[in-house]
């Protein structure tokens, strides 16, 4: 091999490296720039939002957000969204985690069928099921209530809760539990004293995931609530008539928890799919 070969190879590798770095930067910009535009619009006065051309630097005016907070029904919708999402979070973990534990620890008849049922729900456009539930809820008095909507959102979140907790429990060796049994723990105390502390951060992550699913859901929320609209349903209903600055401030409020939550659960995003695929 001659010297020129080596240097041209190195040059090629370097240019390949630059291309690689540039594409990574470009793809990051592809995600972040639209978010930045939303931020500019949110932190500009209503006049600026409706004017032309747009500034490319936010002017840090709280007018749009104040208008959002003062808009009739908006704060109530925000509160409803939080209530429904918290209820969804609690229910999906309370219902889903035991099943995740059962799937990871026991071999039992019907296990395949059960997994099938859980996986099947993901192949269905679940929000559609809000249509018949609307009738059922009117009969049972659950219509237009936070708990009713939370029940539907829990159905959306349960497959994820089961699969995430399944992969989390599978990550904890059963030997740890067995050691606790030999040391005098019952199955229950071994679970609460040994497994639970290890699993708690992961449970928190899957709870947050359930929160985000509920927080973002639009269709079922729009179908099942009338007076007690959640933020997404309220914004959807107002899309036609609302001024631009209201839409953008609302969009921004919808996005903020997502940013925080994805950051909080980033460690678990991959673990849960890695095993859940199988």
């Amino acid at each position: 091999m001659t010297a020129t070969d080596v240097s041209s190879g190195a040059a090629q590798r370097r240019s390949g490296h630059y291309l690689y770095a540039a594409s990574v930067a470009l793809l990051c910009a592809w995600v972040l720039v639209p978010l930045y535009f939303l931020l500019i619009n949110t932190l500009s006065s209503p006049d600026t939002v409706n004017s032309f051309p747009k500034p490319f630097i936010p002017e840090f005016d709280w007018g749009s957000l104040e208008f959002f907070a003062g808009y009739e029904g908006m704060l109530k919708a925000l509160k409803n969204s939080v209530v429904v999402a918290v209820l969804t979070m609690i229910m999906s973990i309370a219902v889903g985690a035991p099943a995740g534990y059962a799937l990871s620890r026991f071999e039992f008849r019907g296990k395949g069928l059960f997994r099938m049922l859980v996986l099947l729900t993901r192949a269905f456009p679940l929000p559609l099921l809000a249509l018949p539930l609307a009738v059922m809820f009117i009969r049972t008095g659950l219509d237009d209530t936070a708990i009713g909507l939370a029940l539907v959102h829990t159905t959306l979140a349960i497959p994820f809760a089961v699969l995430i907790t399944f992969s989390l429990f599978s990550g904890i060796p059963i030997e740890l539990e067995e050691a606790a049994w030999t040391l005098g723990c019952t199955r229950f105390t071994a679970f609460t004293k040994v497994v639970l502390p290890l699993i708690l951060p992961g449970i928190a992550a899957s709870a947050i995931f359930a929160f985000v699913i509920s927080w973002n859901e639009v269709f079922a929320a729009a179908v099942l609530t009338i007076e007690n609209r959640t933020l997404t349903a309220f914004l959807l209903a107002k899309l036609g008539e609302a001024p631009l600055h209201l839409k953008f401030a609302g969009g921004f409020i919808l996005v903020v928890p997502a940013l925080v939550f994805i950051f909080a659960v980033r460690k678990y995003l991959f673990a849960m799919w890695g095993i859940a695929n199988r």
Partner: protein
Amino acid sequence: MTPRYLPYVLILPVTLFLGVFFLYPFALVAKQAFTTGGGFTLDNFREVVGYWKFPISLKNTMLLAAIVVPVQLALALLMATMVNRMQKGRDLVLYVWTIPLGISDLAAGIIWLAIFEQSGFLNSMMTGLGLVDQPITLLGYQNPWLVFAAIALAEIWRATAIMLVILVAGIGLIPKEYYEAAEVFGASPWKRFVKITLPLLRPSLQTALILRVVLAFEVFAVVVALGGTLFPVLMGQIYSYQFDLMNGGGAAALALIVLAISVVFTLIILRALRVPKGATI
């Protein structure tokens, strides 16, 4: 309590829950779709399929899925392989790329509205660069293709992340030794991608595609935010049957059609990407 019954006790809550809120409403939808007042009938289906907006919303929904899902798959595969060979800043890049995972379709629609509306950032940039003299109406009936492009871009922007997460997790499961062996035999990076990554990634590709395709047929809020009534889609039609036309039977029939399309595509994907028996890593 003996361990023999314990697993059944543990899965009981989920089973009950899915029974009441998944299987039962599913049966209700079917019943509502096939009845009008009394007895079995196909009238609801005839009505919704015969409505002039049905062919166009079916076409729009399918076209959107046909454009969006392959682009997302390619983009997610590219991003996943890029992340895989990254040494520095992997966590940060992954966080940035997965941000849209937490963003609702409604919020994504609003975000892209900020770019495409008449006094929005695209027009601001174009006038700034002297491409146009004054802001033009981008999301109007004059430019149906632009409305489509805006919706497609918003969908690609928002929902590539879910595929990325699944594929990154899948690639992480492929043993590094395979790549090392291939390198020893002089396989190029492209060859390694085609001969090792793609075949071994099948289970993940299956999951990612099913999830994405089903969600693509559910596209709704992005369309409402960006297109309004300019771009009718199936979910939007269901919504208007339920609320504007007050026709529950029609909504149910259309819902069953969407369900059927989703199931058919799920089966096609399962079949096309089936993993040969015993061929796991």
